[in-house]
């Protein structure tokens, strides 16, 4: 049986949760409402600001704008860039963990590359790998790679030394220490990398699409801007937000599956 106090506590908790949700929805609805209303009353120029009803019309008229194709292109580039960047980053981090010498040599390069705005490499990448999807994917990889290396190497090096010493007392080889201690101890580091890299890959893909592309949401945004079709630009930005949300959600779901698999409870 629940005590009265417990009931009150649960009630209060539910109420706070509900209130937060209601406020969140209210802000969104009010924002869209005021936007629509001001556009209708011609208090703002909907040619420049667009308006919710026109964005909705663009969204529902998917076929005419080839929106599905553009979404697919951006999603594809992002996922490939994201997987490549994360995987390569982790592999390089493993190599640097393995060789103290290489890690020391690489250190200043990694620091400089990490603070360099990767978008500046855009033109170089285009000339080297050609203007097209491949350039956009390389861009996405370039943006997420260095951060992934640094974060994972840091995680590997911070693994509890006692665990490594314990393994050594059983004559563990370096490969065994890597596979039995370091990698399983760093599952949360990997998940963190995935979360950060979703956002970074999108930045890479969109800035890549700004520079060279014949399709994709980044392309639509640039194109819409140039021909002053602000409805299209706004719609693309909103879809981009939803896409980012879905991808992040997928990683969170993956995290839950792994953490619930008893082993990491």
């Amino acid at each position, binding site marked *: 049986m629940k005590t009265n106090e417990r009931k009150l506590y649960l009630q209060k908790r539910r109420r706070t949760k509900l209130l937060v949700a209601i406020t969140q929805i209210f802000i969104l609805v009010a924002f869209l409402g005021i936007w629509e209303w001001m556009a209708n009353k011609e208090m703002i120029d909907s040619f420049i600001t667009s308006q919710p009803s026109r964005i909705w019309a663009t969204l529902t008229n998917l076929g005419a704008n080839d929106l599905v194709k553009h979404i697919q292109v951006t999603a594809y580039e992002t996922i490939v860039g994201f997987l490549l960047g994360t995987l390569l980053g982790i592999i390089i981090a493993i190599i640097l963990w393995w060789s103290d010498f290489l890690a020391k040599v690489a250190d200043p390069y990694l620091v400089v590359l990490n603070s360099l705005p990767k978008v500046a490499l855009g033109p170089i990448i285009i000339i080297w790998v050609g203007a097209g999807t491949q350039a956009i994917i390389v861009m996405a990889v370039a943006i997420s790679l260095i951060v992934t290396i640094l974060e994972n190497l840091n995680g590997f090096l911070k693994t*509890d030394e006692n665990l490594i*010493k*314990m393994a050594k007392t*059983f004559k563990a080889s370096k490969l065994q220490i890597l596979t*039995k201690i370091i990698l*399983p101890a760093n599952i949360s580091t990997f998940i963190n990398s995935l979360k950060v890299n979703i956002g970074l890959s999108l930045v890479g893909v969109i800035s890549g699409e700004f520079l060279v592309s014949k399709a994709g949401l980044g392309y639509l945004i640039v194109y819409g801007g140039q021909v002053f079709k602000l409805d299209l630009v706004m719609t693309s930005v909103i879809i981009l937000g939803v896409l980012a949300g879905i991808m992040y959600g997928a990683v969170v779901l993956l995290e839950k599956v792994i953490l619930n698999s008893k*082993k*990491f*409870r």
Partner: protein
Amino acid sequence: MKPILEVKNISKTYQTPKGEIQALQNINFRMKEGEFVSLIGPSGCGKSTLLSIISGLEEKTMGEIYIQEKKVEGISPEIGYMLQKDCLLEWRTIWSNVMLGLELKGIRTKESKAYVESLLHKYHLYEFKDKYPQELSGGMRQRVALIRTLAIKPKILLLDEAFSALDYQTRIMVTEDIYHILRKEHITALIVTHDISEAISMSDRVFVLSKRPATIKDIHKIEFETKERNPLNCRESPKFSQYFNTLWKELGVDENK
């Protein structure tokens, strides 16, 4: 009787960018089979370094180590090691944790599995074998760590402040527990501790190390009249506080020098 472990003229000098540090100087001692010896000394004197050298984890600068009169280099299969923490891998079940040593050494045979099973049965952990470390109490975790070490059938066990991470009550309990298990399995134990009462309650002899560079300053034989001596009941003996005072003074003098 032949010594099971003989440490001969061990010296250790560390090279650091700032210069040389001599940690150990001419350490000599012998241990009989089944004997429990504690090493105490001022903090930072090199007790743990000595254990690391005996285990083969660390290189020595000079000297030799013999196990059953055979000279050993590197990590010996006759030696088990217990660290400050239980070092259980949280992502593995108890079973897979106790099998880790055998797995790393590549000797997971039918016999070794049966042996580990028998250890788990004997020490009341079998029913927990599919649980994860987080689900066990501190004392049980320590026992799991001990079985992981016993699984490789060591003759000598090195305990490096093995109980210092536990709270006081658990520590007393675990000391008692581990003491009985080691006696039952006829293990020779070399214990490093900063806790004088733990040293007295566990050991047949206590070695007092000096400040760095550490040498063996004094050896105390610990004997109680109690028939079936164990770490708990020997604490009640009047001799216990005598030993305690002697060792306390000996360490204190060194610290204040």
